């Protein structure tokens, strides 16, 4: 009951903040709306019992990536950023009815009671070990190679970002 109320609260906050991300025109405000949406999504994670994921969401997304975006916004010139039209209104008006139809369809399907839920299976494991250590055990046994590949991917992307962001003498106007 209580987790249900928390789900609706955080879900509505995240949807409102997502609409702000799409519609706000000032990029700093867009970052702030995105921060609100990410914090609400981490609240959903906490209320669903995924504590480690919620904490990582707060630490990685909300702190690291959002600050990164603000750094990038300060790196591009402000005057030009503010002067231009921020939205592609024609595409927006053209696409919006299809999005609305999809949403109506999804809500009808959800309300008509199509069910995917199943009974509890591994709940005893999570009860014995807790969320974080269960994730750690799974991550370093079953998904070990995926974990290693992900670390290689992060290394490659770091090198790529450094290479892309370096200074060059020539510009192509």
């Amino acid at each position, binding site marked *: 009951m209580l987790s*249900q109320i928390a789900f609706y609260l955080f879900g509505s906050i*995240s*949807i409102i903040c*997502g*609409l702000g*991300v*799409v519609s706000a025109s000032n*990029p700093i405000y*867009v970052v702030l709306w*995105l921060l609100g*949406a*990410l914090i609400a*999504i981490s609240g*959903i994670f906490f209320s*669903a019992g*995924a504590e480690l*994921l919620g904490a*990582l*969401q707060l630490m990685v*997304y909300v702190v*690291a*990536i959002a600050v990164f975006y603000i750094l*990038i*916004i300060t*790196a*591009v010139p402000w005057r030009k*950023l503010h002067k*231009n*039209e*921020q939205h592609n209104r024609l*595409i927006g008006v053209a696409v919006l009815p299809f*999005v609305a139809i*999809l*949403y109506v369809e*999804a809500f009808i399907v*959800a*309300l008509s009671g*199509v069910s*995917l839920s*199943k009974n*509890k*299976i*591994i*709940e005893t494991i*999570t009860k014995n070990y807790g*969320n974080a250590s269960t*994730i750690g055990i*799974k*991550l370093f046994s*079953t*998904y070990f190679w995926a974990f290693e590949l*992900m670390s290689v991917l992060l290394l490659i*992307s*770091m090198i*790529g*970002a450094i*290479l*892309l962001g370096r200074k060059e003498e020539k510009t*192509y*106007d």
Partner: protein
Amino acid sequence: MIESLVAKFLVQNVEQYFVLAFVLLGIGLFGMMVRKNLITILMSLELALNSVNIAFVGIDKMNSLIDGQIFALFTIALAAAEAAVGLGIIISLFRLRKAENVNEIIDLKG
């Protein structure tokens, strides 16, 4: 009628996570199409990636699994990599071509 609807909304099921994830994914995709600024396009992409995490966590909660959270961890790492590379591309685009909106990058237009 209304009581049964309210009762349906108070029971926790996996579909509500799916509906929320779908709504957020749609908002993110819509933002990717509508926005002109490259940075805000990337931010809409972050929103869409996060919605997938919500679906993973919802499946985990309802089926008492743990695997979806691990995949959500991978998604977070992927989003960090994507943000680093994408923002590097934006910086170099601005530095080389003085462009930051998608309709200014028209060098490959036939």
